[in-house]
């Protein structure tokens, strides 16, 4: 299973990579929204995990692109714990789940697995 992680904060990115690789996933990384869109257009992923605050192209724009063009690609958005309004907006755009930072490793594992199982089974 291939997961694209979109995050410009190096420390958060390393924690995501560490846990997801430990869980056995193949990870690709994009450090801004523009790079994320380029990778999404030229590669195949089973899941995208994206922060919302990104340089150049925002996480919302990445999410919007995916839901308009690759409806079967699930997206988990990362957010700060105090961003209720932003999270609601992301859900309106079609986000499949969200994880608040800082996240527990167990929560990350469960939410990723749950979505991948759901989408593999054809929702």
């Amino acid at each position, binding site marked *: 299973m291939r997961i694209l992680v979109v995050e410009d904060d*190096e*420390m958060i990115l*390393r924690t995501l990579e560490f846990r997801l690789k430990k869980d056995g996933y193949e990870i690709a990384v994009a450090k801004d929204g523009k790079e994320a869109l380029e990778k999404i257009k030229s590669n195949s992923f089973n899941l995208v995990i994206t922060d919302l605050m990104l340089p150049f192209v925002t996480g919302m724009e990445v999410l919007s692109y995916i839901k308009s063009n690759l409806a079967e690609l699930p997206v988990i958005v990362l957010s*700060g714990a*105090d961003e209720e309004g932003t999270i609601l907006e992301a859900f309106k755009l079609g986000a499949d789940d969200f994880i608040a930072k800082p996240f527990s490793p167990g929560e990350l594992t469960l939410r990723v697995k749950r979505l991948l199982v759901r989408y593999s089974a054809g929702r």
Partner: protein
Amino acid sequence: MGIFILLTMELSGNEQAFKVCNLTYLRNFAGGDEGFIRQMIELFFIQVPDELNNIRQHLTINNLSDVKNTAHKLKSSVALLGAESMASRLKQIEDLALAEAAAEGIMDLHCELVQINEEAVKELKAYLVGV
């Protein structure tokens, strides 16, 4: 009594008294991988001063939007090392920048953050030596 004092004074890296940081979350996340913990601490040494410097530079040109965004991002990063006193000040900076408050208040918080970060760095360097 003498033995008791000796035992309480003996601190390993894991029992080190932290005032700024708390590595509980990171240790839980690492699941025993000390290399990962070390990597994250070394990233902290690089990332935090860089972003604090960015906040200061944004503030000098009154770019409150970037002050807010930088503080917002950094808040999550320092929380990984349990630096709550830093996270709470970054939250205050975020709120002040959003409210377009006077730069002076934000600058005071920034100065506090620089000092707290110096303490954090000392603690973490001592931890790395002890590991």
